[in-house]
């Protein structure tokens, strides 16, 4: 990759008290790419996502967004710099309507807000139908769509998608992951953390395999899907 990568993580170390969750992780995401972060639960994928957006502090290492170090910035600053975050567990704002959930994440004037709302409804038509409903009333799949749409409302350059399939039926997972090409086409790179390796590699161009807080393997989607490392890493736990 000759151009400077959009996201560059160097030797990132993250700790939970005395336990080290990430041991010097390094990876890169280029603009316009979709990269899948794979690995079993407890491997460190969600921890990495939280550290990238700033909800968890980094004990050591650097995070560079377009060459600029951001590991010392608070989460709200990083969001405004162009990182969208879609947390695991469908964390909508339950007492706000669908429309309000989308609006709070949009930082621009009224015209921009209208435009972005339309894009969100175009990406997930079901949301348009329920735009006036309170978010707690939506089904799990609708809530997941809402969290993704919300994280795109500030037109981020990078979207961190944390385990979108958790708690969703296989069919809904497909529906949700099928949107990723459209998101890429809109100019947002995607880092997708997923337990479901098969489905993730179907939408991503590259994959990174995590095990026990370290990068265990990396390669194109096809390479990883075929490799033995994938199976070994899962069984090794």
């Amino acid at each position, binding site marked *: 990759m000759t151009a400077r990568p959009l996201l560059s993580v160097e030797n990132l170390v993250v700790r939970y008290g005395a336990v080290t969750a990430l041991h010097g992780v390094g990876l890169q995401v280029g603009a316009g790419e979709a990269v899948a972060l794979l690995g079993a639960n407890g491997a460190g994928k969600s921890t990495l996502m939280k550290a990238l957006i700033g909800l968890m502090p980094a004990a050591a290492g650097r995070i560079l967004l377009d060459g600029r170090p951001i590991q010392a910035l608070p989460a709200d600053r990083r969001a405004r710099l162009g990182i969208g975050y879609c947390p695991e567990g469908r964390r909508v704002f339950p007492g706000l309507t669908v429309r309000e959930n989308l609006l709070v994440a949009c930082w621009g004037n009224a015209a921009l807000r209208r435009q972005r709302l339309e894009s969100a409804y175009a990406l997930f038509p079901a949301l348009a139908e329920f735009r006036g409903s309170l978010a707690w009333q939506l089904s*799990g799949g609708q809530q997941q769509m809402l969290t993704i749409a919300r994280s795109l409302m500030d037109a981020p350059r990078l979207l961190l998608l944390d385990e979108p399939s958790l*708690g*969703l039926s*296989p*069919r809904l997972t497909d*529906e949700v992951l099928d949107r990723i090409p459209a998101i890429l086409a809109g100019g947002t790179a995607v880092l997708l953390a997923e337990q479901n390796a*098969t*489905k993730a590699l179907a939408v991503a161009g590259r994959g990174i395999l995590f095990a026990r807080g370290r990068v265990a393997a990396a390669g194109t989607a096809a390479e990883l899907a075929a490799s033995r490392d994938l199976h070994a890493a899962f069984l090794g736990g």
Partner: protein
Amino acid sequence: MSGTPSQGFARLLARGGIAAPLAFAALLWAAFVLPHASDYVVRVLTVAGTYALLALGFGFVFGQAGALSLAQGTFMGVGAYVSGIMAVRWGAPFDAALPASIGLPVLLALIAGVPVLRLQTHYFALATLLIGQVVLLIAVQWESLTGGANGIGGIPGLSLFGWPLHSRLAALLLVWAFVAAGGLLAWHLGRGRLGIAYAVLRGQPVAARAIGIDTGTLRLLAFLLSAGYAGLAGSLYVRAIGVLSPDILGFPVMVTCLTIAVVGSRRRVSGAILGAVLIVELPEWARFLRDDYLLAYGCILLLVIVAIPEGLTETADRWLARLLPPPPRPLPAPAPLPLISAPARGETLLEVSGLVRRFGGVRALDGVSLDLRGGEVLGLIGPNGSGKTTLVNVVTGIFRPDAGTVRFAGRDIAGLTPHRIARLGIARTFQTAALAPDLSALENVAIARDAARLGFWRALRARGAEKAAAEAEAMGLLVRMDAAAYALAPAGTLPPGIARRVEIARALAVRPRVLLLDEPAAGLNEEEQADLSRRLRTIAAEGMAIVVIEHNMPFLAPLVDRLICLDRGRVIAAGLPDAVTSDPQVIEAYLGTPRTVQA
């Protein structure tokens, strides 16, 4: 016993924490300083004793049950008023008035407590605040009885069995004798299974009910005990100072009680006593504070709740534990426990028929029926919102069905409370392992063995050995679930796979015949999943009926004997796994078609 005195002292510190040195210091002070103390010092210490009793009582409702009751001061005031009025109207001495002084606050707590204890914190706090305000206003209004805003003076002092206690020292000793007795009772009740049950109630109230703990009764018990202690404190107080005034019903008393609990300790007896002495003595040590003692309390309360929220004694114990780590306790030998009391393979254990449950306008369950037989594993799948968890919640008693029946071993259980249903033999786990984080894995499992044996009188008669039997059985279950290595680890530190296994062990400890597991494979890697699958099959083979809710088809399909798919509250397919997974309706609603990787 061999060992130097310093080793013995270290052992004492390690076991009892800061309480032992504090008690020792108190005894020294009592022996050498007290006989020469002035009347004034003795009087302040007497008042400190009454507040110690108040704080000890508060420890039941606030410390053990975790409910912020703002009526504790009011109960003390009621006790004071009863004793004072009985003294002035009928010449009743202290001990004759005592039963009513304790009884009336307890009665008030009973009447008010039953409906308000189940409320969440913000409502419960308001309810207790209002009770306090009403009692104060009535006391001020009802001048003929209470002396109104001026109160009543000339209350006779303490007396026992007809012997008046003239000297201040004797009064002090009587008050502190009550403190010792009250403290001993509180300590005894808290260290057995009752203390553990309260810890589960605080940490995971829903899970507590799911393992058979009657949380409503336990909360009420704590509230009644707190009222009783407060009544005793009030009657001692009014006799000790000789004046009855509506100040005793005012909010400053509650603030003092709260400050003592926060500064000293919410739960520990030594903390309540230390806190009371410190806080009541404070205006005496710092004379300039005398007029502004409430200002000082406010500042201290703020400082302590921000900086040392657990209070002085627990923080001191924590430091002590770091300096002198307590000796590791030996693991109990596992006692084998047959899982099922009456193996019932093939017998229909659970019959659900036409179950309907609405929330607002949504029918979460719209006529669901299923049967479950002993020895079989039933899988429950379906999209989010299809009603899977609602079904489990209705069967376990968290919600009443709007229509339909639930029969367990032939008996209609719809509408029974969750803890009753758990004791009848239906156990469940939750989507996120709902273990009490500060208790060890062993304690979490052992309390489920004992849930049906909790109660005030049992706790009173209990001995140290009672926990041993339950712990041995719990150990056996942990061994069975291969989590024995983590038995003494605090449940909050367990890795998700282990926590899941401990939670299943806890569910098994209830001795169920039906086990309902909610997404047990979530958070487990493939090896752990295969292991869990094997264990569940073994448990089923002994006659247990198991229901597993899951999204993870590779885990579920080989495990189950039958599969049921829900969608929008209805059963859309039921039968053998292969048949259900290839059912077009199920594919449409839930499974989707498999995708391949782009080259």
